[in-house]
């Protein structure tokens, strides 16, 4: 658990939520540090949306506590949260400008402030000339941009993005990704819900993995990968290998296309392995530790929890 100094923007303590006869959220606790990107991961139906709805005050937890910036969730907090649900939606017949103005005012901005901020964002995305366009006239990618602006225009301290890249082409996905990083630089914290693991590895610092409403994994991405490493090393070499090799406890898993994969035991260092290789006159081109991908960890963890 994280006991470090930086204050948490969001803190969940033993949150429980039960619907009719199934427990959607089961004793979940985690913290999102200020100014970080946090991944909320889990397969479909794991309880991600239930959790997000509790955090956004759409529903309330049956028990447990949720703190935003150190305070228990209250009626004013929704104004400090920006939420982009997975199922996007805007009023199709409303004009872009009117719509954004309305949503910004619902988040507590005055009409004047909202106009200034919206202008800034629309200019940034180079879509200021869309102000009078109706949503129904925009493409999916275009309306996605409008939706993103609606999520962040009120400068929330916590931004919750549910599958923000789904349905976006690579160019627009990159644009949004850059914006997420910039918002983080400016001090916002982002709760990023997805099941696309490659994005998580790229973007998130900390993650929590839930399934059946329970936490399976929680911590920094680097720590988790370390925790799940199998002490495997990859050695790329040139030329041929000597007849007999002794690698002091490491076994060769595979030897293909001039790449050796070794597997050792927990607690062993790579020093002896490298030394033995050099002593055997192996012409080493590269030496890497093989860390498991989050995807592998995810699948492994979810499968064991389903058993």
């Amino acid at each position, binding site marked *: 658990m994280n006991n470090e100094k930086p204050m948490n923007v969001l803190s969940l303590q033993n949150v429980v939520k039960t619907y*009719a006869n199934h427990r959607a959220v089961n004793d979940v606790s985690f913290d999102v540090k200020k100014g970080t990107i946090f991944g909320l991961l889990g397969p479909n139906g794991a309880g991600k949306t239930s959790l997000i709805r509790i955090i*956004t005050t759409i*529903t309330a937890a049956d028990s447990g506590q949720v703190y935003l910036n150190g305070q228990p969730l209250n009626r004013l907090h929704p104004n400090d949260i920006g939420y982009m649900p997975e199922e996007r*939606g805007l*009023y199709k017949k409303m004009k872009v400008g009117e719509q954004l103005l309305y949503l910004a005012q*619902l988040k507590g901005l005055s009409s004047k402030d909202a106009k200034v901020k919206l202008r800034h964002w629309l200019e940034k995305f180079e879509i200021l000339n869309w102000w009078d366009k109706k949503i129904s006239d925009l493409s999916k990618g275009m309306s996605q941009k409008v939706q993103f602006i609606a999520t962040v225009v009120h400068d929330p301290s916590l931004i919750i993005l549910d599958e923000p890249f789904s349905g976006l082409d690579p160019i627009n996905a990159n644009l949004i990704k850059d914006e997420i990083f910039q918002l983080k630089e400016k001090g916002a914290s982002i709760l990023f819900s997805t099941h696309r693991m490659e994005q998580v590895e790229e973007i998130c610092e900390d993650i929590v993995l839930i399934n059946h409403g329970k936490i399976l994994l929680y911590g920094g991405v680097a720590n988790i990968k370390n925790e799940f490493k199998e002490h495997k090393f990859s050695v790329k070499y040139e030329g041929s290998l000597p007849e007999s090799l002794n690698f002091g406890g490491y076994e060769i898993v595979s030897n293909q296309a001039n790449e050796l994969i070794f597997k050792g035991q927990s607690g062993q260092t790579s020093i002896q392995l490298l030394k033995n290789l050099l002593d055997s006159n192996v012409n080493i081109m590269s030496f890497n530790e093989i860390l498991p991908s989050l995807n592998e960890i995810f699948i492994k963890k979810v499968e064991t929890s389903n058993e």
Partner: protein
Amino acid sequence: MNKIWLVTQREYLTRVTNKTFILTTLLAPLGILVFMAAVVLVMSTGSDKAKIINVYDPSGLLQNEFKSRDNLTFKFSNESMDAQKTLYKEKKINGILELPPLTDSLAKSYVYKYHSDDQLAMDENFAIESAIGKKIRDFKLKKLNIDAKTLENLDTDVQAEPETILEDKKISSITTIVSSALGGIVGYAMFFIILFYGMQVMRSVMEEKINRIIEVLISSLKPFELMMGKVLGVGLVGLTQIGIWLILMPIIYFIGAALFGINTEAMPNPVNDMNPEVALTFQSKASQIFLELRSMNWWFILPLTLFYFLAGYFAYSALFAAIGSAVGEDINDANSLTFPIMMPLIFSIYIGFSAVNAPDSSLAVWSSMIPLLSSIVMPVRLPFDPPWWQIGISVVSLIIFTIFLVWLAARIYRVGILMYGKKATFKELSKWIFYKD
């Protein structure tokens, strides 16, 4: 509160600036006017060609008296039929009216002939028939030695004159008629307005759910605020539309009258076709109606009617909102769910109609105090001056029940808007009421 106002504003502005709304609001009174003008036009232009009709009346039945009408000119001629038919062939006249002598002074029927290849228009036929009928009547009176005055004395105008016993209240025979008409119109209007705008609230809820914008919205404000804002916004649209109509109708009417020269005199006026005495009583009745309308206690009827409209609208539209939230993607699903809401509404309009006939029947009295029914039945009874205690019970129970219904609807709404998939059953709806937040 501020957020409710924002929602109200959006609902109001998007609707009021909608092209369809502007067109229907402006064109509906115009449409009614055009329709009325068309009716007047059709009625007054029976035939547009001027016709000359010769009247062959050898027995002098009409005594050379036959008033020509707009396009019809009657000429008495005792030339032989053959000579007149030659005139017809030469196209100097359009037809010949041949009136055979009346043989039997007590004959029950009389047949005249109209010689022409073209038929007369219906109103022309009618005018000729009634003119001949009147003449025959005079002829018969003379033959039977009856004085026209004596005959008139046989007819008696029977009227009731109601007198109150305990209450000090002036009522006349016309009071009931005026009250009935007023009550009926108000009841009918209430029914349609509540139904129409209630449905709009439902559609608005469904739109947000189908659009999926709902999740963004309720992460910014409470479902109750959203629902109330919506109900208020649509209600204001309704009041705006009715207000515009009330102002526009007379204006358009006067403009139309000035532009097209429709003057009330030229309209088919029943008074013109009546004999003077009847016309007199008719006119006195008309002025009596106006007197009656003026003597109504409008300071009492109007605010109460407005109250019943608002309370009824709130109760029903909150229910419509709850139903809208429970419907899935398919608008047709709404029909089966709206049925139970429509029932009291339809029921109350029927009770309203019966209340017009019998405003003090126990059915009318009880249902004007039962919420959901009362918002339509009581306004129907108001012109009949129901007792204060009934109004009191009705108002208090309606307020309490409306608050309860809005609360109930909000409980269903907050759960329904987040439920996707198949449409909910009433059993599920009733469970939603007890869900925790």
